[in-house]
């Protein structure tokens, strides 16, 4: 595993999480500090309620996210496709795993231990900055997406109440509406970083410094994003 092989994954992560202030080469330099690991189909990657010792940058395969509902039964929250990252929130705030992650097919990942994670966060380098910016952008997206979903839920509850008050029959829908309970569970998943809307991925304005501008112009290339 070297920086060159990780650069395409780093580039996708930066675009997915809308990071405007980091280069893929720098993020790949941070990722290379982790260890390569893999799981076979159906293997548990981490279990809800366990201590958070590592985070994973998924390079290949799909990860099923399960969380116990109020009755204690596991419910699928999402299936994440590579490249993505999981388990970072527990390393940030020391919380326990908020969901169980299972490998769907063969899954390859970079495992970053708590000690490595903390060391990267303290680094005054471009690699450290790229990793911090990825983390900050993902947390910002979690909060933004959750707030949007909460606002939508409020609107829908109010609409439903108004319809009941005016004794009008509720709008006919082809499918039964998702219950408030399910939507709250989904929002909790967003806040834990398990679910994320991909909207805006093609709308990232990259911040280009003078050094990058000179290199790009010397190669006769257009601005990438």
């Amino acid at each position: 595993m070297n920086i060159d092989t990780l650069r395409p994954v780093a580039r996708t992560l930066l675009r997915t999480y809308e990071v405007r202030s980091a280069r893929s080469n720098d993020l790949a330099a941070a990722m290379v500090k982790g260890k390569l690991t893999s799981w076979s189909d159906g293997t548990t990657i981490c279990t809800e309620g366990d201590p958070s010792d590592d985070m994973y940058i998924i390079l290949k395969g799909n990860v099923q996210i399960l969380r116990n509902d109020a009755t204690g039964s596991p419910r699928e929250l999402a299936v994440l496709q590579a490249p993505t990252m999981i388990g970072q929130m527990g390393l940030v705030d020391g919380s326990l795993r908020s969901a169980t992650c299972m490998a769907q097919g063969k899954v390859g990942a970079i495992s970053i231990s708590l000690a490595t994670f903390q060391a990267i966060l303290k680094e005054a380098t471009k690699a450290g900055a790229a990793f911090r910016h990825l983390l900050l952008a993902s947390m910002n997206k979690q909060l933004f997406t959750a707030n949007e979903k909460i606002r939508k839920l409020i609107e829908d509850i109010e609409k439903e109440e108004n319809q009941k008050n005016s004794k009008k029959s509720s709008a006919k829908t082809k499918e039964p509406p998702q219950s408030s309970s399910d939507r709250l569970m989904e929002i909790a998943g967003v806040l834990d970083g398990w679910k994320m809307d991909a909207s805006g991925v093609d709308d990232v304005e990259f911040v280009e410094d003078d050094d990058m501008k000179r290199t790009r112009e010397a190669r006769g290339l257009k601005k990438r994003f």
Partner: protein
Amino acid sequence: MSIYKTLSKMHMFKEVSKEDLKDLISQCEPSSYAMGALVCQQGEAATHAMLLLDGRLDVSVRAENKTRSVGSIHPGEIFGEQGLFHNKGVRSATVLASKPSHCLKLTPKIMKTHSNNKAMVALERHLIATMSRRIRSTNTQIQKAWKEESKPNITQNVPEKEKSSSLLGRLKSLFGG
């Protein structure tokens, strides 16, 4: 008090050298607000975040023709970070100075060009901790609402209207309602 003196007293910068702190200050645009002055307006374009140096700011959200107070910002706190990460993002709240206040502007460009500066590293780590607390606090309230909503044995005798009103109240409280 100079900006350097104010920042050097903040816990997040306690291990940062004078040179790094002064370098960061030289790149960040300062701004001053008299009591009652507008710092940022809900709905306007968000292009940067701010670090409050001194004073106090009040945050409010306008919805359904009502303005609700959602809290205060104290010295050392960073706000408006949406402007650092969300392209074409807008301010989600209005911020007014409730005391004479001074701020430093943080832009994505400064974050990018100061990756070797330990004051910037300290600032980013402080922001990670701040956002993590915000996420946990929202999540705690959402999980509480979800658990209440999922208790059939307790809520089955509660009229549907009361049940949804109580959930509505809990959700609105997240936005100061």
